[in-house]
């Protein structure tokens, strides 16, 4: 599904990603962990196509397409979804209207007719029930005045509506209390179907108690320096990141 080869990127001349390699197969859940400033959010931004970041080398293929050549909107239409760490507010635009526009833009790209209003509303109702969404949220302006937890739940709800092939979750757990964390994770788990893949970026292990990863990777100084299974996350939780930093420095010195 997703194949990242030696990806290098910088922002304003500052090197952030220094050669990332990662292969995500259909149905897999990959967690990417690492200390602050390791390049976790940059990786998600580059994959989604944010213009501020300059790609300086490497390749990313998504279902056989050259992802880096595609516009952000085409990446989304091909099935890449980014759950934002800080979802933006769009005053005056309801979540319903926003999603209807998004779905119909995607359908247009795929050569399909726009979804009928009634069919759309029915589809949305189903997804709202599935995600246990509060009806009031969908008629309010997108993210405006939402609490941190509501914003993150709205991200997961949007994911359910847009049915992506690959979801990148950028520190979705940050700023969530334990109840909100449970709700968000439960939402994600409901969307796992053996085909959809997830790249879960997080600073803390606690999210991975709820969304259990198949693989855990540690990002440090713009590289994946260690990979393992779910137990690696537990080890990080217990021991912190310092031992990994030390390992990397030692390797660099020898």
């Amino acid at each position, binding site marked *: 599904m997703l194949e990242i080869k030696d990806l290098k990127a910088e922002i304003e001349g500052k090197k952030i990603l220094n050669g990332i390699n990662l292969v995500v197969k259909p149905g897999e859940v990959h967690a990417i962990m690492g200390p602050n400033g390791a390049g976790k959010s940059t990786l998600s931004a580059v994959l989604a196509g*944010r213009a501020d970041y300059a790609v300086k080398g490497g390749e990313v293929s998504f279902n056989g397409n050259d992802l880096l050549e595609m516009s952000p909107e085409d990446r*989304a*239409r091909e099935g890449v979804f*980014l759950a*934002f760490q800080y979802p*933006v507010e769009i*005053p005056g635009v309801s979540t319903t209207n926003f999603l209807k*526009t998004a779905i119909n833009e995607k359908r247009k*790209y795929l050569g399909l007719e726009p979804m009928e209003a009634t069919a759309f509303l029915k589809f949305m109702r189903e997804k709202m029930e599935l995600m246990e969404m509060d009806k009031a949220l969908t008629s309010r302006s997108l993210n405006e005045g939402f609490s941190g937890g509501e914003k993150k739940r709205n991200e997961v709800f949007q994911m359910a509506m847009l049915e992506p092939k690959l979801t990148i979750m950028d520190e979705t757990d940050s700023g969530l209390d334990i109840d909100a964390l449970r709700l968000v994770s439960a939402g994600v788990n409901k969307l796992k179907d053996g085909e959809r893949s997830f790249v879960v970026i997080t600073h803390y292990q606690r999210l991975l108690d709820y969304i259990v990863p198949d693989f855990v990777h540690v990002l440090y100084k713009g590289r994946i320096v260690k990979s393992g299974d779910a137990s690696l996350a537990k080890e990080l939780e217990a021991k912190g990141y310092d031992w990994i930093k030390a390992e990397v420095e030692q390797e660099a010195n020898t």
Partner: protein
Amino acid sequence: MAEEVDIIDQVVGQEYKYGFTTNIEMETAPKGLTEDTIRFISSKKTEPEWMLEYRLKAFKYWQGLTAPSWQNFSYPAVDYQNIIYYAAPKEKITLDSLDQVDPELLKTFEKLGISLSEQKRLTGVAVDAVFDSVSIATTFKDQLKEKGIIFCSMSEAVHEHPDLVKKYLSSVVPYTDNFFAALNAAVFSDGSFVYIPKGVRCPMELSTYFRINAENTGQFERTLIIADEGSYVSYLEGCTAPMRDENQLHAAVVELIALENAEIKYSTVQNWYPGDKNGKGGIYNFVTKRGICLGDYAKISWTQVETGSAITWKYPSCILKGDHSVGEFFSVAVTNNMQQADTGTKMIHIGKNTKSRIVSKGISAGKSHNTYRGLVKVNKKADKARNHTQCDSMLIGDRSGAHTFPYIEINNKTGMVEHEASTSKIGEDQIFYCNQRGIGTEEAIGLIVNGFCREVLNQLPMEFAVEAQKLLAVSLEGSVG
């Protein structure tokens, strides 16, 4: 924001959809403005003597005036002797029957999406179509007549309803009001006349569609709406013009009179040709619009969506004379490329317990400048007058400007006036967020701008709200990256 600037540079004067011209034989007045021009217009309309006298008085007054210069934009001086003041399709039109209207004209309005044939009409909307200086057709007149409602062209009203015209014409905007009002009073050609009798709720939207076609002509329409006690009417005007390289002047006057307990809702979707991306051509939209709440508990509500014109310069206003009367002004003004707008409202509180509300949304893109100018005045005797003003500006790109000039004059201690203002910029973050959900940049801007204007667009009659939304998106096409 490097990419954003690039894309602004690519702004092409995107096709103005209504820029075509109609080839039809016209009868015009000779270029220029003299007493003879006014006599010519008056005789073309076979007007009674009192109307001609009024025009001539206004003309004399106008000759003593110079054009105002306090506005927050500049434009080359208009040569008033280089304008044609009257242009009408040659064929004599009998207003009663559509069959007698030149098919070329019917086609023109079809092309503009305005069907004058009642079989194909928009449900619940009666239309008066004005082409250059004359009204072409007014639909649904008979159905409206059954309720005692008068909806006709101004020329017709002068003949058929002289008492009402004499009583109210010029009563809200006298010809001495300002330079353009004086000019309009002297040379006004056509426009709509509406009278809603006591206690009648007008069963359909009334609408006038203005089309400038002829070259070198100005359009000077005059609209008068009278809502008698306890009546209600919702009226909408729309306007387009061909793409021409020279600027054309549009100086209209609109007067609204709401008697006791009456309500007038007046909506404008203005899409005159805005000129090309370098600012060549386009309409000068210099209009005086004012309403008076004459009776107690009367209400006047202005809603305007201004996307066209090279320059928009107007302040639809309310004089709140009756006690407990209410004035509202909801405005969206969009400027792109080299367009300029200096627009807002005046709320004059005279009666007790009068209330006014102003919601203004200005959007500036390209190298355009967008000014809100508003006056809230509370007179000595206007006890407990209240006003709330909300004035929001949105900037797209970094070469446009937004300006706000609020004037507040309070002469009564019990008055309560609130003013809120904000300026924002469409953020890269908002656009990227939309992109990430599969929404392209142009659609994203349309969505964000429409959200920004939601409060105002909600005021428009259903039939036109959708049109207005599309118009906003089209006006800003190619304005950001």
